[in-house]
C-alpha cells in the first residue's frame, strides 16, 4: 500500500467532519471495550496468560534465527516450501511466480495484513490475475477500492446502508429491485457470490497468526471460515507471514490464542483456528496439492536490538486501536498507513521510515490505555515518545514545533520567568473564557478549538495555587 502517513492532519480533519463515521466511532467507544472487559473478567487467569505470552515472544525474539530454521525444516519435511523475502518487492514477485506457475486466473485471499503491507492485490492485477478478497470486510472494501480502517475489522468505517449501495453498484447481474434492507440479506448475497469464487479459484492466499516451529504448521484465526475455504479448495495454498510470527510449540500457540480472541473481539475463542501443515497427503480426500510459505522481513529484523524491539511481540489483535482516544476521534484512514492506531503509529516509522510518517508518533495523547490493554504488554507510549525524540534529534520536526519546544525549554530552565509568563497567560485565558469558563476560538490554536472548546483556567497557574494553598514554593 502507498502510505499517506504524512497527511495525517489533513485526513484527521476530514474524518472529524464526517458525521456518518463519527456515529460509528461513537458506538465503538463504548461497546468494544465493554466486550473485551467482560471476556477478561470471565477468565481469572488472563493476566498470568499475558505474562506468559510476553515471555514466549521474548524468548522467540532472542532466538529468532533458531526457530525460523526449525520451522523451515519442518515445513520442508511435510512437503511444503518456504520462500524468504527481504522486502515487499521480493514477496510480490515470489507470489506472482507461484501463481504464474499454477496458471492462475483467479486468486482468492483470506485476510492478511501483510498482504496489504506488500500491496499484493495491485501486483496480481497488473499481471492479469484477479485477486478476490473473501473476508467479508475485505471484500466490501475491495469493491469500494478503499484501504482497511482497522486491523481486524477492515470495513469498520462502512455502514450497512453503504454496503447495500456498494452491492447494488457491483453485483449488476442481480435484480436491481431486490431487497437489501436487512443485514441478513446482504450477508446471504455476499455468501452466494463468494461461494462460487471459492470453488473457481486456482490459488488461495492466507496470512498467518502463528507459525509453529515444533510442527511446521501455519495458523489462521477467523470467524467466517473464509480463510479455510480459501486454503482448502484451490490446488495451491500460499501463506504470507512476517518473520516475527513464529512460536515454538502448540502449547505456546494455545497460550497466546487464549489472549488473542479476548483482546481482539471479546470472544472466548474465535470460531475457526486452523493449523495447516504441508500440502494434502496422498490419502487425503481434499486439500491443496501445493503449500508455500512466504516469510517476509521488510524492516522487521532491523528493529531487533533497538528500543523498538518489543514491537515484534505484537499479535495484531487491534485492542490498542479499540481503546485509543485518537483512533476513536479520527478512525483508521487518517493514519494513512496499513497499520493504524497506536501500533500503527509505533510500527509504521520502523517499516516505512520516520520521515514519511512524522505525524504518526504525535497522533497520541500518551494516555497509556493502549499499553494497559495490550495483551503482549508492549510499552506503546514509551515507543511513541522515542520516535518523537528521534524526530527532534534528526531535525525532522516542522520549524514551528521546534521553535515552540525550544522556547518552552528556555523558559522551563528559568523558573522565575516561567512563573511570570504562565501567570499572565492564565489570567488572559480566564478573561477570554468569561463566565462560561470555555474558549471557543483562540489564536494559534484553531486546530484545537475548531472541534472542541478549550476549558479556561481559573485565572491562576497550578504553581501559584500550590503556593497559596500549601504555603512555600
Amino acid at each position: 500500500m502507498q502510505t499517506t502517513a504524512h497527511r495525517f492532519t489533513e485526513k484527521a480533519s476530514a474524518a472529524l467532519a464526517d458525521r456518518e463515521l463519527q456515529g460509528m466511532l461513537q458506538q465503538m467507544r463504548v461497546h468494544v471495550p465493554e466486550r473485551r472487559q467482560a471476556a477478561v473478567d470471565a477468565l481469572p487467569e488472563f493476566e498470568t496468560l499475558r505474562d506468559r505470552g510476553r515471555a514466549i515472544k521474548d524468548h522467540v525474539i532472542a532466538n529468532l534465527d533458531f526457530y525460523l530454521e526449525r520451522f523451515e525444516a519442518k515445513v520442508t519435511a511435510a512437503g511444503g516450501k518456504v520462500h524468504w523475502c527481504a522486502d515487499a518487492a521480493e514477496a510480490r514477485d515470489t507470489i506472482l511466480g507461484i501463481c504464474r506457475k499454477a496458471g492462475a486466473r483467479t486468486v482468492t485471499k483470506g485476510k492478511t495484513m501483510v498482504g496489504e503491507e506488500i500491496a499484493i492485490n495491485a501486483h496480481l492485477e497488473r499481471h492479469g490475475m484477479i485477486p478476490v478478497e473473501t473476508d467479508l470486510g475485505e471484500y466490501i472494501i475491495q469493491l469500494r477500492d478503499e484501504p482497511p480502517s482497522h486491523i481486524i475489522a477492515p470495513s469498520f468505517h462502512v455502514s450497512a446502508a453503504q454496503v447495500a449501495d456498494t452491492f447494488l453498484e457491483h453485483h449488476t447481474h442481480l435484480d436491481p429491485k431486490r431487497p437489501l434492507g436487512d443485514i441478513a440479506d446482504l450477508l446471504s448475497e455476499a455468501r452466494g457470490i463468494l461461494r462460487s469464487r471459492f470453488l473457481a479459484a486456482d490459488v488461495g492466499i492466507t496470512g498467518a497468526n502463528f507459525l509453529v516451529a515444533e510442527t511446521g504448521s501455519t495458523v489462521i484465526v477467523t470467524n467466517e471460515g473464509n480463510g479455510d475455504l480459501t486454503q482448502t479448495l484451490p490446488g495451491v495454498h500460499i501463506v504470507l507471514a512476517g518473520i516475527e510470527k513464529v512460536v515454538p510449540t502448540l502449547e505456546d500457540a494455545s497460550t497466546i490464542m487464549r489472549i488473542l480472541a479476548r483482546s481482539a473481539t471479546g470472544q472466548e475463542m474465535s470460531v475457526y483456528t486452523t493449523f495447516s501443515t504441508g500440502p494434502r497427503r496422498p490419502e487425503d480426500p481434499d486439500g491443496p496439492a501445493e503449500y508455500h510459505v512466504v516469510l517476509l522481513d521488510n524492516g522487521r529484523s532491523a528493529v531487533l536490538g533497538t528500543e523498538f524491539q518489543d514491537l515484534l511481540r505484537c499479535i495484531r489483535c487491534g485492542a490498542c486501536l479499540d481503546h485509543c482516544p485518537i483512533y476513536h476521534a479520527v478512525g483508521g484512514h487518517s493514519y494513512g498507513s496499513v497499520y493504524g492506531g497506536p501500533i500503527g503509529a509505533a510500527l509504521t516509522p520502523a517499516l516505512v521510515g520516520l520521515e514519511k510518517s512524522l505525524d504518526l508518533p504525535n497522533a497520541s495523547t500518551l494516555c497509556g490505555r493502549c499499553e494497559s490493554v495490550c495483551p503482549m504488554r508492549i510499552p506503546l507510549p514509551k515507543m511513541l515518545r522515542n520516535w518523537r525524540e528521534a524526530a527532534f534529534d534528526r531535525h525532522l520536526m516542522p520549524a514551528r514545533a521546534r521553535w515552540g519546544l525550544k522556547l518552552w525549554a528556555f523558559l522551563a530552565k528559568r523558573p522565575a520567568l516561567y512563573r511570570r509568563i504562565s501567570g499572565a497567560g492564565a489570567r488572559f485565558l480566564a478573561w477570554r473564557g468569561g463566565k462560561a469558563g470555555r474558549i471557543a476560538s483562540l489564536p494559534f490554536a484553531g486546530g484545537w478549538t475548531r472541534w472542541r472548546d478549550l476549558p479556561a483556567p481559573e485565572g491562576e497557574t497550578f504553581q501559584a495555587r500550590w503556593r497559596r494553598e500549601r504555603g512555600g514554593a
Partner: protein
Amino acid sequence: MSGARAKIMDSIRRGLHRGAPDEAARAECEARLARHASGPIPARGQLDSEGQVALFAKMAEGVSATVERLEGYEDVPAAVARYLKANNLPAEIRLAPAPMVAQLDWSSQPLIEVTAGASDGSHKVGLSPAFAGVAETATLMMVSGPEAPTTLNFLPDHHLILLPRSRLFGAYEEAWARLRAGYGEGEMPRTVNLVTGPSRSADIGHVPQLGAHGPRRLHILIVDDEAAPER
C-alpha cells in the same frame, strides 16, 4: 531466494549482537521444544467428566451451537432424522468416511439418503467425527485425513458432529497431548480445525450474524461411548 534467506539471518544476528546460536542456546531451545510445557491452564475446565460435559454444553450455547447427548452410537441415526425434520431439511446427509460414522446402522431410517466422502458444496448437511472436544470454550478439534475431509467442515449449511465423551477434555493442551499420542511428536495431519460454534461475521453494520461462509448451524452429538475409539 536463498540470497534473501542469508540476508535476513545476517540481519537478525546483527540485531541480536551475536553470530549463529551457540551450543548452549541451541540446547536450551531444543529442550524447550521437546518439553513443550503448557502455560497457565484455566481452572474452569479442570472438572470431572460430567462437569466437563456440562461446561461444554454451556459454552456451546454461548456461541450459538446446539448440543444433544446420546446414550450410544445406535442412537445417532434417529437423532439425525429428528434434526433434519425439525429444520425442514431434505432427507439427505453426507458422511465423513470414518469408521466411527461408517459403523452406524441406518436401517431404522430408510428414508434418509446417506452418502460418504468429501463435499463439493452441493451438500446441505454433513456429519463428521470430532477428534476431540475442549470444554473450556466448547471447541471441537477436527483433523483431516482419509476418514475426515476438511471440506465437510465448511461447505454444508448444517454441520453435525459426533463427539465421543471419552474425547472430551478440559483444555486445548490435553487435546494436543492426545493428538501427539496418535500422530507422533512434532507430527500433524495436514489440517487441524479448532471449531467453536457456527461461522459468523460482524463485518456488515457491526451486527453479529451467523453463517458467513461456513456452516450456519453447528449441532454437536455427545455420545456416551464405553472406551476411546482408535486414533
